[in-house]
């Protein structure tokens, strides 16, 4: 059984169709890039999978079952925008995560935060933007989930932070779990992707294995994407 399946998915906001007839199948043990320009529908799709929006028509299945309380337990989601209470200390935030998620491994979180040289008694709003992003990623990756969904984890961070984020993703996803990373910064992450999904104007344009696509087109994923979606 596939980890995640989207079947004939449509999403409208008022009269506007945001996602058109999405059919997707995400297997276990893969890192998948959800690649599209700004406004292509990436975040909408991700929010649907996380049950934060409801579908207009179609179905989303996790481990063969419709999404809901159970699927939230096994999906660890990093939203595009900061979602933590910035007036809280890191220690307090970790306490929240412990209470909220059965599968949260606070020992792991503390270890990763220690590697960052972070004072966990510090409030989030006292930290740099890059540090806040790292803390959020650490919290998300410290859950023993089946599926990690990271919405634009690289937006607006410096190259050193970007490397840290990629390393943390590679090192910390569970055996047999999958990771979906949405981004428009393709060249930065394409090295770690198994599969790519190109999305444009609410439709899936292409799904492929990254190395096969490079071989076929004799170009990088970034280059292929640019050719396809020339502005």
């Amino acid at each position: 059984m596939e980890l995640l399946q989207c079947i004939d998915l449509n999403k409208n906001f008022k009269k506007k169709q945001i996602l058109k007839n999405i059919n997707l199948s995400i297997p276990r043990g893969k890192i998948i890039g959800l690649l599209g320009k700004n406004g292509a529908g990436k975040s909408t799709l991700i929010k649907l999978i996380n049950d934060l929006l409801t579908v207009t028509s179609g179905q989303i299945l996790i481990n063969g079952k419709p999404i809901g309380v159970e699927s939230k337990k096994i999906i660890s989601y990093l939203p595009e925008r900061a979602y933590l209470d910035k007036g809280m200390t890191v220690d307090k935030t970790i306490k929240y995560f412990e209470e909220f998620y059965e599968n949260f491994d606070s020992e792991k979180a503390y270890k990763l935060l220690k590697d960052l040289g972070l004072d966990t008694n510090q409030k989030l709003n006292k930290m740099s933007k890059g540090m806040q992003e790292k803390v959020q990623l650490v919290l998300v990756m410290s859950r023993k989930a089946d599926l990690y969904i990271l919405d634009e984890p690289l937006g607006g961070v410096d190259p050193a932070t970007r490397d840290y984020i990629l390393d943390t993703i590679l090192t910390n996803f569970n055996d047999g779990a999958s990771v979906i990373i949405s981004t428009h910064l393709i060249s930065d992450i394409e090295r770690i992707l198994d599969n790519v999904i190109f999305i444009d104007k609410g439709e899936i344009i292409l799904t492929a294995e990254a190395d096969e696509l490079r071989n076929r087109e004799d170009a990088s994923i970034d280059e292929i994407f640019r050719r396809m979606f020339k502005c």
Partner: protein
Amino acid sequence: MKFDFDNNIPIYLQLVTELKRDIISGKLSAGERLPSVRDLALDLKVNPNTVQKALVELEDIGLVFTERTNGKFVTEDNSLIEKYKQEYANTMTQKYMETMRKIGLSKNEILLLINNLGGNV
């Protein structure tokens, strides 16, 4: 192990080439145990599945073998390593010759060049 990947070429093929070169140069010696897929992936900062694919390819051509419980090893067949070494040397030399011919050098001129530079490499 650390090298820069070219995003234009399938990553697993680059890994195959790199590991092959490490084996024929002796950097990885015959019979040596390879690091685990996960360790290699972390070290090279690529996806574990990509490393796995590269190792399967190396296994297919006989340069690597799996011992069920112990992991993967470099072949102990020195004549096979030698064969791939010759093959690699031939390919690189042919490439070099082609490039030199393209800029108009004759075989003798190329040989002279190699002889003259020989002392410096």
